[in-house]
């Protein structure tokens, strides 16, 4: 079977693209590994119009239910391994999943979002799940009355710290630079929260522990002194990387690994479009990703002559 469009992703860009494509009667398959993408990990979303305050999971469910109202084929909890072009001028693409299933399509929308950046320091892998977590919303409740550290002083790290303060007795934020880089309103909440201590100019060098994490060694970037910080848990929130690996050999990426798109969301390969945080769109927000998904789907319709 030849699809007209395959959408890869399960976040706001992919789901919105799916809704728009289905409404235009485009023969579409949506393949997603996880519903919601990064949105699922947000404790409270207060900047998506129409919802003054909503949890990430609730918003994901609303998006998902809306999509499933339409007769769109969906393969869920499945990862795409590779995308290949199998013919030239009016290209047909072959998508292969990690399970070995293959699908062919005239157009693709890559909306695979981002994955958390790791520290890439010794023992990080060893302690994932044994005191190291990338998901505060999942694991914060497990650290009741404990001492934890969050690496990262941006919005993600600071939001995680505020969430952790509902459970942990002490939270250290280890920020690489001289200042927190989160939103001003968040910075004020951090300042007012007596459980949170911010340590700036801190570079984490090593993790220590035995069966579970016991602490981190970090360097004070100004004095160069190495210090130990004993903790029960470590949350890593140092940003994310675009999930462009299934396609990186086929299309042009920028120096950050993001897919370069034109104003119609087309990539450097005719017939392959991209939307959301995996692209070089300037700002990474749910509302922007949703808008980009809609735009990509409408561009696909024009490309297909529909």
């Amino acid at each position, binding site marked *: 079977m030849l699809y007209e469009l395959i959408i890869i992703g399960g976040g706001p860009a992919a789901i919105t693209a799916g809704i728009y494509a289905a409404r235009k009667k485009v023969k579409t398959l949506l393949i997603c590994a996880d519903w919601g993408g990064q949105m699922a990990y947000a404790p409270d979303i207060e900047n998506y119009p129409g919802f003054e305050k909503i949890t990430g999971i609730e918003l994901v469910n609303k998006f998902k239910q809306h999509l499933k109202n339409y007769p769109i084929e969906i393969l869920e909890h499945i990862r795409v391994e590779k995308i290949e072009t199998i013919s030239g001028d009016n290209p047909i693409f072959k998508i292969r999943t990690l*399970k070995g299933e293959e699908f062919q399509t005239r157009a693709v929308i890559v909306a695979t979002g981002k994955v958390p950046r790791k520290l890439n320091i010794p023992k990080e892998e060893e302690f994932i799940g044994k005191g190291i977590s990338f998901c505060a*919303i999942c694991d914060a409740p497990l650290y009741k009355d404990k001492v934890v550290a969050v690496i990262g002083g941006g919005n993600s790290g600071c939001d995680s710290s505020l969430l952790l303060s509902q459970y942990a007795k002490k939270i250290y934020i280890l920020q690489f630079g001289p200042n927190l880089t989160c939103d001003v309103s968040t910075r004020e909440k951090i300042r007012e929260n007596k459980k949170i201590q911010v340590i700036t100019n801190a570079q984490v060098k090593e993790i220590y522990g035995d069966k*579970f994490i016991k602490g981190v060694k970090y360097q004070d970037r100004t004095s160069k002194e190495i210090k130990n910080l004993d903790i029960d848990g470590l949350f890593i929130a140092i940003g994310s990387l675009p999930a462009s690996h299934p396609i990186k050999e086929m299309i042009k990426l920028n120096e950050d690994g993001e897919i370069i798109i034109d104003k119609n969301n087309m990539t450097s390969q005719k017939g392959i479009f991209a939307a959301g945080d995996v692209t070089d769109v300037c700002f990474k927000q749910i509302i922007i990703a949703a808008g980009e998904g809609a735009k990509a789907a409408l561009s696909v319709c024009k490309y297909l002559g529909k």
Partner: protein
Amino acid sequence: MEKKPHIKVYSTPMCPYCYTLKEFLKENGFEFEDIDVSKDKKSLDEMVEKSGQMGVPVIEIDGEIIMGFDKEKICKKLKISE
């Protein structure tokens, strides 16, 4: 008649993978004991003891522990065709 599997899911309230796993079990008609480890220290300790780690979700199917929403392993254990 094949005996129903005894399933326990250890989870926290807002964890997306926990939610996905529980919805998956419900959609496939499986009943399970839903244990919120954020409210119950004894269950949290039990989960850490059984799984050797602290991440959620953890699913126990007839005594076998599977960490995370490992769809392939879970489908194999529960004989769900993917």
